C-alpha cells in the first residue's frame, strides 16, 4: 500500500512584486525520510521552506503539507510543522523558556516541560534558559531555533540552514534530532549549503537552481562533482 507523501509541491511559484523567487518547483517528501534541499544562494530554498511552513502563501501551484493545503489552510499546516528559519527566528527580548512555553501552549501540549528541558540540555542551552535571547551568539540562536522546531515532535520538520555558525556539538545534536524525527516517522526537509552534512543527515537530495528543481536523487549519488555540475 502506498502512503501519501508528507509534503507535495506541484508547480510552486512565489513572486515578491516583480521578483520571482520560486518559479515552478515540484517536489515530494515522504514520512520517515529526510530530504536535503541544496542549491546556491537565491536558488529558492528558503522561500520554498517558508511556503511549507505556512509563512508565505504560494503565488501559484499546489502545496500540501501533512495533508493540509498551504494556500487555504495555513493554520493546519502550522500545527503539523516544526520550522527552524534560516535567519534569526527568535523574539529578541523573550527567554528560551518563554519561546518554548508559547509554542507548547499554542499546540496544546500538556507535559512539555521535561522534553523542553531535555532538548535545551542536549543543545547546551540549559544554563541560559531564562536569559533573553537578544544577548545570544549566532550559534546559540541557531541551536535554539532547532529546539523550537523539534519541541512538539512535528510530523514535518523543516530545518533551514540549521548548521550555519553552529559548533560541532550543536551539529551532532541537530543530526540526532533529524535521526529521532525519521525514526518516529516524521518527514524531514533540511536546507543547507554543506553537502557533506546534508549527506550525513539525509537519504534523499533535491537540488534547486534559479527557483527551479534541477535534480532529485538519492543523497549518496550526489558526489562533489555531480553537485558542482548541477549548480553551474
Amino acid at each position, binding site marked *: 500500500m502506498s502512503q501519501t507523501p508528507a509534503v507535495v509541491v506541484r508547480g510552486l511559484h512565489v513572486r515578491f512584486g516583480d521578483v520571482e523567487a520560486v518559479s515552478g518547483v515540484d517536489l515530494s517528501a515522504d514520512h520517515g525520510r529526510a530530504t536535503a534541499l541544496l542549491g546556491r544562494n537565491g536558488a529558492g530554498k528558503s522561500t520554498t521552506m517558508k511556503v511549507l511552513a505556512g*509563512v*508565505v502563501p504560494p503565488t501559484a501551484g499546489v502545496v500540501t503539507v501533512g495533508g493540509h493545503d498551504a494556500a487555504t489552510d495555513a493554520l493546519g499546516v502550522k500545527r503539523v510543522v516544526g520550522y527552524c528559519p534560516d*535567519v*534569526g527566528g527568535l*523574539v529578541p*527580548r523573550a527567554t528560551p*523558556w518563554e519561546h518554548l512555553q508559547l509554542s507548547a501552549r499554542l499546540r496544546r501540549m500538556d507535559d512539555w516541560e521535561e522534553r523542553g528541558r531535555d532538548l535545551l540540555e542536549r543543545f547546551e542551552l540549559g544554563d541560559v534558559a*531564562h*536569559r533573553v535571547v*537578544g544577548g545570544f551568539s549566532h550559534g546559540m540562536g541557531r541551536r535554539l531555533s532547532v529546539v523550537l522546531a523539534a519541541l512538539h515532535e512535528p510530523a514535518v520538520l523543516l530545518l533551514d540552514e540549521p548548521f550555519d555558525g553552529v559548533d560541532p556539538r550543536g551539529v551532532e545534536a541537530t543530526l540526532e534530532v533529524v535521526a529521532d524525527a525519521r525514526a518516529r516517522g516524521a518527514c524531514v526537509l533540511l536546507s543547507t549549503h554543506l553537502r557533506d552534512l546534508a549527506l550525513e543527515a539525509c537519504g534523499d537530495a533535491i537540488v534547486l537552481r534559479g527557483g527551479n528543481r534541477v535534480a532529485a536523487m538519492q543523497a549518496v549519488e550526489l558526489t562533489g562533482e555531480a553537485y558542482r555540475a548541477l549548480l553551474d
Partner: protein
Amino acid sequence: MPSSTDGWTHAARATAHLVAFRARTVRRRAPAAVGLVVVLLLTVGFAWGPATVETDALASAPVERAIGTLQGNLGTALAGFLLLAVSAAMGAGGGRELLSRSEASIHPIGPVTEHLGALVLAPLNLAWLVQVWGLLAITALVTPPARLVGAQLVVLAWVLAATAVGQAVGWSVEGVRRTAHGVLVVRVGAGLVVAALAGLHLGGWLVPLVRALPTTWVAEAGQDSRWPLAVVALLALAGAAVVLGARPATWALGLPPREELDVQSGVHEARPVPAPRRGSPDRALLRRLDRGSVWRSVGMRRGLLVLGVGPGLVALVAGLEWSSVMLLPGLTASGAALLFGVNTWCLDGKGMVWRETLPVSAADVFDVRALVVAECMVAVSGVTVVLALLRNGLPPLVTGTAVAACWLVVVVQVLAIVLTWSMRSPYAVDLASPRATPAPHGAMAGYAGRLSLVTTLTAVLFTGVAALPWPWLPPLVAVPFLAWSSRRLVRARRCWLASDERARVVLTVAAV
C-alpha cells in the same frame, strides 16, 4: 599617527558619506522632498510672517500686554530650548545614530563621526522644530522690522549653540550612565533636578532665576545694535561645544552600554501560563510576550517613563488649566506610539518569522498587539490626566466629559493611524539600543508631525466644545471620530488578515 585635525576631517567626510547614504535609501522620495520643502517654507513663514502683522492697527490693551509678555519671556523661551536640547540628547542615549549599531559595526565609524551624525540628526525631531518655529515667530512678532534680520540671526545662532551644548551634555550623561552604578546616579540626579525645579517654581523663585540667566542678555542683544556681537559669541560657543562634545562622546561610546547589557543578560524566571478570568490563555500568553518585549527594552521603558511623568509633572507643578491639559493626552499618546507603535511589528524583530509559524489565528495576534500599543498610550496619557486631576481637583461636568471624550478619541485615533502605518510601511529595526528609532529619521519626523497635528486639532475642538454648557455634547462629538478611527482600525486588521500582505510585513520586519 593622525593628528586631531585629520580626525575631524575624516569624521566630517564620513558623516557626509553616511548622510548621503541615508538620503539615497529613503524609500518614498517624493513625500520626503515635499516634507522638506514644507519644513523650509514653514521656517521662513514663522521667521517673517508675524513681522507683517500690523500690531499698531490692532492697538488694544490686551494685544499690547500679550506682546509685552512675549518680549519679556523671550529669554525664558531660549532657556527652554536649551532644556529641550539637553533632555532630547539624554533620552536618546547620547544622540541619534545615522546607522544602527549592527549596521555600523563593520565600518570604521569613530565616535567623532557618531557625534557629528547625532548633531546632524537633531533637527529631525518635531519638538526641536516646533520650538525653533516658536522662537522665530515670537522674535518676528516682538522685533521692529528694521532689526528683524539681526534678531533672527541671533535666534538661529542660539539654536546652533544650544543644540551643540545639549549634545555635549547628552554624551556626558550617557558616559556617566555607562559607569558602575551610573544608571542609579543619573536617575537620582534627574530626580533631584526635577524636584529642585519644582521647588523653585512652587517657591516663586524659578522665574527670577531664569530671567537672571545669560539668555535674557541674548534676547535683548538681538533686539538692538549688539546683535553682531551676540551672533559671533554664540557661533563661537556652538563651535566650542561641537569640538568639546567629541570628548564625552568618545568617552561614552568607549564604555559598554551597561543598561542594555544588564537587560540582555537579565534572568527572567519561568512563570506559569496565565489563567485569565476572561479571555483565552493563548491571548494572555501572547500579551505577556508583547508586554515583555516593550518593558525589557531600555529605550521604550525610558521613553514611557519620561512621557508618563514629564508632562504630568508640568501639569502638576505649573497648575495647567483643564483647557491646556486637554492637549496633553493626545501628545503623550502620540509620543508613546512613536516609541514602537508606528512600526509595531518590529517589536518581534527577526523573531517575526518564528511567531508567524505558530498555530494561532492572525486575528488574535493583531488584537493582542493593538491592545498592547493601546495600553502604553493609555498608561502614559493616564498619568498626565491623573496628575492634572490631583492639581486641579474634579473639573466641572462638561469639562470632565470633554476631557474623557477627547482622551478616548485621541487614543483610538492614534492607534488606528499607527497600525495603518505599520501595515503600509514596515521596517526592519533592532530596538535594542535606546539610540534606535522604529523607522528612519525622516519618516519619524513625518509621523511625529502628522500625529501631533491630528491630536492637537482634535484637542482644540474638544476645548471649544467644553466651553459650551452641555455635558452631553462632548460624547456626542466623539462618536463620528470614533467611528472613523474604528473604520481605519478594521481596515488595518483586514490587511493583516490577508496572508500575502502579512507575509510582506513579516519578511520586511524580519529582514529575510
